[in-house]
């Protein structure tokens, strides 16, 4: 009987204590909820439902990103890195321009000298090299060719020059390979006189580069050149 009473009374006490708990908790809950709405309303800066606020408390809620921290960081660092990469490329281009500026300019190259190793040219062979943008003919002449050049009667020539006037060493003939007529480049080991032949208008030069036949008025030009030693030739 007593047990039964106690069982029957259990719900009653439980419900009573629950009721007490809830009734005591209610004001707290309500105040917490009110605080929440107040914070919420402050955050979005809207007028509260229970009246106009007297102050507007500033905060950064409006500006806060909805995205994750890392994705914002990725965006920021990507922009910074792109800026850095562009700056680095610009700096590199600037330095490169200055360095290119220091290299030999066209007028320096135009005054250039050319060194030729003579032991690479066998006897009886022509070599054409480029010097200041123009071809230079170098011929290692044989003894027969030197004799042939010296046997010409100088007074019969259109542009009278002896072979000695045209060469510093008789075995090396160094000439500018530009036809004195209109500036073509003559062909070596060709023509009626065993020297050079200009195909443009048919000028024949002999083995000393002197004009013998055709329209050209002058002998092939001799550039300034020197032999610093037995094995080298410097043109210019």
């Amino acid at each position, binding site marked *: 009987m007593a047990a039964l009473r106690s069982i029957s009374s259990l719900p009653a006490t439980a419900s009573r204590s629950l009721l007490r708990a809830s009734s005591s908790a209610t004001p707290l809950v309500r105040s917490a909820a009110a605080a929440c709405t107040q914070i919420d309303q402050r955050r979005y800066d809207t007028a509260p439902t229970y009246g106009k606020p007297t102050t507007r408390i500033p905060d950064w809620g409006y500006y806060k990103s909805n995205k994750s921290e890392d*994705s914002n*960081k*990725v965006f920021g*660092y990507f922009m910074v*890195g792109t800026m850095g*990469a562009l700056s680095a*490329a610009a700096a*590199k281009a600037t330095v490169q321009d200055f360095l290119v500026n220091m290299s030999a300019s066209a007028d320096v190259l135009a005054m250039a000298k050319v060194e030729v190793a003579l032991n690479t040219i066998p006897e009886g062979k022509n070599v054409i090299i480029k010097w200041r943008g123009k071809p230079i003919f170098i011929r290692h002449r044989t003894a027969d060719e030197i004799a042939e050049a010296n046997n010409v009667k100088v007074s019969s020539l259109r542009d009278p020059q002896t072979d000695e006037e045209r060469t510093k060493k008789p075995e090396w003939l160094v000439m500018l390979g530009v036809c004195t007529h209109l500036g073509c480049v003559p062909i070596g080991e060709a023509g009626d006189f065993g020297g050079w032949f200009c195909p443009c208008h048919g000028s024949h030069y002999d083995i000393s580069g002197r004009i013998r036949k055709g329209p050209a008025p002058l002998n092939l030009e001799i550039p300034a050149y020197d032999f610093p030693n037995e094995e080298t030739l410097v043109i210019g």
Partner: protein
Amino acid sequence: MPVSSRIYNTLFRRNYVFVGLVFGAAFGADIALDIYADKFWDWKNQGRQWKDIRHKYVTEE
């Protein structure tokens, strides 16, 4: 792990990786721009350059 976190952790978190990436990107972009500009020029001048008509004139070698 989201993609952004993975990118941040692998590329931007350590400064030496980030700076290396920046200079590498500058170097690579320079080369890429040069190559692209050359390709564009060749495409714009198709058939007009010596390398396009060389086979018509040089047959030996």
